[in-house]
């Protein structure tokens, strides 16, 4: 957040490592490669932790909904506390979401990280389904690909 909007006045600042963070901001579309890193980052954060999903792409895929490499709904893979819709949302929307999240934390509504522990099997199954595919989704596999893969090994 730039100095014009200045989130530091609410005591919010960026942290360089997940160990020091309270909130994970997922900004924009999530590709499969990113998802792996997001899950790893999320699991490294100490509790209590919250997730803010930013933009339409994290809610239903946005304009990338039919891409072969971007997931459509982030909440299926990690628990999301609050979402900001829009493409792109204004900075004010993010600040409003963070303020709302603060209120939700105080009233005890925001506790999605507990859900992650309770329904770990559900989230893990979803993550594995997209990250550890064991069969081709659309059938038939290219033969040359296989040959190349075996020749490398």
């Amino acid at each position: 957040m730039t100095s014009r909007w200045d989130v530091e006045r609410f005591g919010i600042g960026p942290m360089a490592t997940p160990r020091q963070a309270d909130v994970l901001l997922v900004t924009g579309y999530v590709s499969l490669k990113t998802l792996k890193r997001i899950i790893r980052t999320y699991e490294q954060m100490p509790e209590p932790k919250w997730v803010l999903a930013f933009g339409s792409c994290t809610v239903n895929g946005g304009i990338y909904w039919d891409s072969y490499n971007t997931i459509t709904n982030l909440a299926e893979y990690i628990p999301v506390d609050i979402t900001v819709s829009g493409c792109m949302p204004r900075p004010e929307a993010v600040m409003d979401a963070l303020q709302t999240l603060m209120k939700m934390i105080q009233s005890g509504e925001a506790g999605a990280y507990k859900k992650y522990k309770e329904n770990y099997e559900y989230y893990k199954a979803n993550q594995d389904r997209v990250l550890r595919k064991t069969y081709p989704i659309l059938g038939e596999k290219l033969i040359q690909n296989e040959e190349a893969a075996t020749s490398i090994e």
Partner: protein
Amino acid sequence: MKLSKEEIIDLLKQRGLEVNDLYPTQISVIVNKENLINHLVYLKSIGFDHLSFINAVDFIDEGEFELVYHVWSYTNKVHVLNKVRIDRNDPKIPTIVDLWEQAQFYEQEVHEFFGIVFEGNKDLSPLFLENWLDIPPLRKDFDTREFSIRLFDAKPNGGDR
């Protein structure tokens, strides 16, 4: 020695190639698969020292892939597009890594997204995709929408049918 665009077109036509004049600094050459290496070596010898990119186009109706080798010359200031057509059912082409080292990554990428095999390239491991089991995703016969619906449970219009 600086060559003008017209001189380059003449030189290439003398070698029996089909040359198209596209833009003030851009020409395209149609090469066949057997001649490719010879042709690129010749281009490099007349000052085309920079390989910018290799890309592929899928002409599914004609049953062919077109590979485009973008070559730029810092001395002649001319950008040459070398177009090669290869058979779609047996997509193989000799590698040019020995000519330009940076071709390694371009060839890896084209192999990953189109399944074209560069013969002689030792490392064609995936660069971008992880654990990819389907046909290469940028081929025209790959249905990306169906893939997204099946794997990610994607819904058109954000689920608002």
